[in-house]
C-alpha cells in the first residue's frame, strides 16, 4: 500500500516525561485511522505533531513523500478539528467556514460557492449569517468540520471532536462524519478515547498507551484479538490474567504455555450451570445440557450480581483470590449472591495474548 502519511519513529519529551515513544505508522490515501487511547496517552500530542503545532524530538513525518519538518503549520495543508470546535467568536458561520479559503487567496464568489457547498455537506444549509455563539454544540462541530474541509486539506486531523457532546448526538454525528469523510475520500486521523466511536469510525484503529503504539489493526481484527494485556485491559476486558494466577483446572486449557503467559477470558464466554449435589469424594458435579461442549469446568460463589438492562454482570469467586467476571444474556438469570454455581468456559472465548505481533 502506498503511504500518504508516513510517520517514522516519533519521539517527544515533555520535561522528564516521554509522551511519545517510537511511533511509526503509515496511512493510505482515503483511509480513516482512529487513534484510540486513554487521556494522557499521547494521542493529542501526536496529532499536534502531525499538524505542525509541536515539533517531535526525534523521528519524522512525511506527507505525500515530503518531509514536513521544515514546513510551518499554515503551509502544511493539514486540517485540524478541535474538541471544542475553536470557532472564531468574532466571525459568523460563513466567515468561519471561509477563513481557510481566504487564507488560500480564493476569490469571494468562489468562496461563497464553496461555503455553500460545505454547509450543505455538513447539513447546515442556510445558517451562513448566523453568529457562532448562537449555535448548539452539534452545530458548532459541524461548522468546525466544514471549516476544516473547505480548503480541501490533504489530511484531516480530528481531536475528539465529539467528546463534549451528549451520547445520542455523538452517535448520530459519528455516523454522519464517516459518511462525509468517505464521500470526500479524505485521509483522516481521528483521535478519541471512546471505543465505540473508534470502532465505528475508523478503517483502522491505532491503540496508543503511555506514548507507545501498542496495536494497529482493523476494528474487526482488534476486537477479535486485542494483542497485548494492556490493550485488552484498555478495551475493557475484565478477565486478563497471567497463566499462573488461574486455578489449575483452567490452566490446562491453554496448552503448554509458560507460567507468565497472559491470558484472556471473554466475559460473555462464561457459562453458569446449576450444581447437583452428589455424595462421594468428587464433590458437586454440574448437569450438562446435551449438545454443549464446555472446555473447562469448576465451581464458584456468586460474589456480586448486577443487572445492566441488556445483560447481567456476575462476579464469580473461585477462592484463593481468583475472581472472574461473567456477562450473561438476559435470558439466563443468574442465581442469587452467595449461591454456589458451576462455571464453564465456551470454546474459542479464551486465549493466550502475548504471542501476537504488534501490528501487521
Amino acid at each position, binding site marked *: 500500500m502506498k503511504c500518504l502519511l508516513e510517520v517514522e519513529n516519533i519521539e517527544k519529551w515533555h520535561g522528564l516525561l516521554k509522551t511519545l515513544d517510537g511511533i511509526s505508522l503509515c496511512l493510505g490515501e482515503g483511509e480513516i485511522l482512529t487513534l484510540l487511547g486513554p487521556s494522557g496517552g499521547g494521542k493529542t500530542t501526536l496529532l499536534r505533531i502531525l499538524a505542525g503545532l509541536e515539533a517531535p524530538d526525534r523521528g519524522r513525518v512525511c506527507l505525500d513523500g515530503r518531509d514536513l519538518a*521544515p514546513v510551518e503549520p499554515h503551509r502544511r495543508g*493539514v486540517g485540524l478539528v*478541535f474538541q471544542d470546535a475553536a470557532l472564531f467568536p468574532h466571525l459568523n458561520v460563513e466567515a468561519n467556514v471561509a477563513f481557510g479559503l481566504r487564507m488560500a487567496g480564493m476569490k469571494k464568489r468562489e468562496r461563497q460557492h464553496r461555503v455553500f457547498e460545505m454547509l450543505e455537506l455538513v447539513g447546515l444549509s442556510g445558517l451562513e449569517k448566523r453568529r457562532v455563539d448562537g449555535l448548539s454544540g452539534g452545530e458548532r462541530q459541524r461548522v468546525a468540520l466544514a471549516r476544516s474541509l473547505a480548503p480541501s486539506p490533504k489530511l484531516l486531523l480530528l481531536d475528539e471532536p465529539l467528546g463534549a457532546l451528549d451520547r445520542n448526538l455523538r452517535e448520530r454525528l459519528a455516523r454522519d462524519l464517516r459518511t462525509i469523510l468517505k464521500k470526500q475520500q479524505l485521509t483522516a486521523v481521528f483521535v478519541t478515547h471512546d471505543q465505540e466511536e473508534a470502532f465505528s469510525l475508523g478503517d483502522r484503529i491505532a491503540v496508543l498507551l503511555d506514548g507507545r503504539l501498542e496495536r494497529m489493526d482493523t476494528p474487526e481484527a482488534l476486537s477479535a484479538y486485542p494483542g497485548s494485556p494492556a490493550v485488552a485491559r484498555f478495551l475493557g476486558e475484565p478477565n486478563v490474567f497471567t497463566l499462573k494466577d488461574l486455578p489449575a483446572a483452567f490452566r490446562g486449557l491453554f496448552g503448554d504455555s509458560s507460567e507468565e503467559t497472559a491470558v484472556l477470558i471473554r466475559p460473555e464466554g462464561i457459562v453458569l450451570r446449576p450444581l447437583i449435589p452428589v455424595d462421594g469424594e468428587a464433590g458437586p458435579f454440574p448437569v450438562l445440557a446435551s449438545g454443549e461442549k464446555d472446555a473447562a469446568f469448576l465451581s464458584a460463589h456468586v460474589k456480586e450480581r448486577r443487572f445492566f438492562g441488556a445483560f447481567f454482570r456476575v462476579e464469580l469467586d473461585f477462592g484463593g483470590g481468583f475472581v472472574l467476571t461473567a456477562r450473561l444474556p438476559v435470558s439466563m438469570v443468574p442465581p442469587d449472591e452467595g449461591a454456589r454455581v458451576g462455571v464453564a468456559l465456551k470454546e474459542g472465548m479464551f486465549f493466550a495474548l502475548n504471542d501476537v505481533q504488534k501490528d501487521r
Partner: protein
Amino acid sequence: MDTGGSAVRKAVFFKGLLFLIPALFLAYFYFYPLLRMAGLGFSGIWAGDPGLARFFGSRDFVSVLAFTFWQALLSTLLTLVFALPGAWVWARFRFPGRGIFALVVSLPFVLPAVVVAAAFLSLLGPSGILADLSSFLFGRPLYLEDSLILVLLAHGFFNYAVVFRIVGGFWARIPESVWEAARILGAGSFRSFLHVALPLLAPALLSASLLVFLFCFSSFGIILMLGGPAMSTLETEIYRRAMHLFQLPVATLLACVQLILNFAVIFVQGRLEKRFQTALAFSGKPENSLSHGKKRLPVLLALVSGTIMALPLSAMVLASLRVGDSWSLAAYTQLFRESGDGLFLISPAAAMGHSLIFALASMSVALLTGLCAAAFLSRSDLRGKNLMETFFMLPLATSAVPLGLGFILALHWPIDLRGTPLLIVMAHSLVGFPFVMRVLLPAFRSVPKNLMEAAMTLGASPARTWRLVLFPLVLPAVGAAAIFAFTISLGEFGASLFAVRPELATLPVSIYRYLSHPGALNYPKAMAMGVWLMVMTAGSFWLLSRLMGLMKTRSTQDEK
C-alpha cells in the same frame, strides 16, 4: 526549502521585538533614571551624610514608617466598610439608576488627587459647605482641617471604586444557585454572608484590600493637601527630603524601603488575583443572577452610598458656581479667557487642549508598550513570567519624586528630553503602562490558544493570525486599556507639575495653579476646571463601561 529556518528566525525576531519595546521603554524611562537617582543617593550614604544619622538614628524614621502603615491600614478598613455595601447592592440587585450609581462611585478613582482634595475642602474644610451649614444651624462652624479623619475619608472616597469594581464584579459572577443552596441548608442572610459569601469572596476581598493598601501606602497629594505639614508618610517624607531639604541620601534610602515594600505588596496581590481568576470559573452571566425583588434596603443603601460619594463632587460643582458671595456662571463663561498676561497662567481652555493632546499621545505610547508586554507575557511557554510581570508592574508603585529627579538627572542623553513635552508624554505613559498591561494581560490570556492554532492549520501565517484572530478578539480590551491610559493621563498631576513648561500646563496643573493664585474668580475657575475634568473622565468611563459590556457578552458567549 529553508522556509522553516527563516520562519523560526522570524518568530524569534517577533518575540524579541515584543519584549524589547516595553523593556527598552521601561529601561530608559524608568530603571535608568531610578538607578541614576539611587546612585547619587548611595554615593552620599557612602560618604557618610550627616542627615542620615539624624533621620534614621532618631525616632523619626520609625514613626514615619509606623504612621504610613497605620494610616494605610485604617484607610483600607474604612474603604472596605464603606464600599462593600455598595458592591453588594450593585452585584445582587437590579434597581433604577444602577448604571449611574456605578459611574458615580467609580469616578473619584481617576480624578487627580488635587481635585479630590479640593472637593473635600470645599465640602468639609474651614470655609466649606458643612461649616457654612453648621454655623447657620448651630451658630458654630463644624469643619475639619489637617486631620487624619479628612485623609481617611478622602482615601475611602478615592479607593471606593477599587473595592467596588474588584469585589462587586466578582460577587456578581457567583451564581444564584450558591445563595439558594445556602438558604435551603438553613442559613439566614447574615449567616449566609458569614459562611458562604465571605469565604467565597475572600480572595477578591484580599486582592482589593491589598491594592487599596498599596494606593494609600503611597498616597501623596491627599496626604500633603489634607494632612497638613505635621503628617508625614514615606511618600511625603521622600518628597520633602528630596525636593525641599535636598537630603538625597535620606530620600534614596526611604525610596528603596518604599520600593521593596511596594514590590512585595504587588507581587502578593498579583498572585492572589491570578488565584481568584482561576478559582472561580463560575458562569460569567452577571446580569442573570440579579434579583428583581422590590427590596427597600438595597435601594436605600445604594442611595445613601451614592449620595455620600456624590457629595464632594457636588460640593465642587457648587463651589464652581459661587463667585464671591453670589451665584454666577462667570467661572464657566471665563474659561476661555486668559488670566493675567498669559505667560504663566494660561487659559483653562488652553490647558484642556494640552491635557487632551498629552492624553492622546501618552495613551498611544502606553498602548503600544502595554500591548507588546501583554502579548509577550501571555505566552504560556515563558519562564519566570510571574517575576517579569511584577517587574513590569513596578511603575504602579514608584514614588514620583525620585523618578522625577531621576528624569532630570538622566534624560539629557542621547538627546535632551528634559523640559520637552515628550517627557510628560513618557511620564504619563509610564503611569498608564501598568494599568494597560493589567487590562490587556487577562484578555490575551483568555483567548483560547486553539483559536490561534485553528487559524494556523487553516493556512494563516502568524502575522495574519494576529491580525485576523487575536487582535479582533482583544480589541474591546484594547479599547478599555486605551481609555484607562487616557483618563490616567488626564488626571496625572505629580509628573506634570515636575516637568511641564508653564505655557504647556495641563488641566490638573492649571487647577493647582489657579487654586493658589489670588483673585476672586480663580477659586471658582479652578473648581470649574475640576468639573470639566470630571465630565471628561465620566464620558471616557461611560465609553469604557460600554466596551466592558461588549467584552462581557463576548466572554459569556464563549463559555456556552
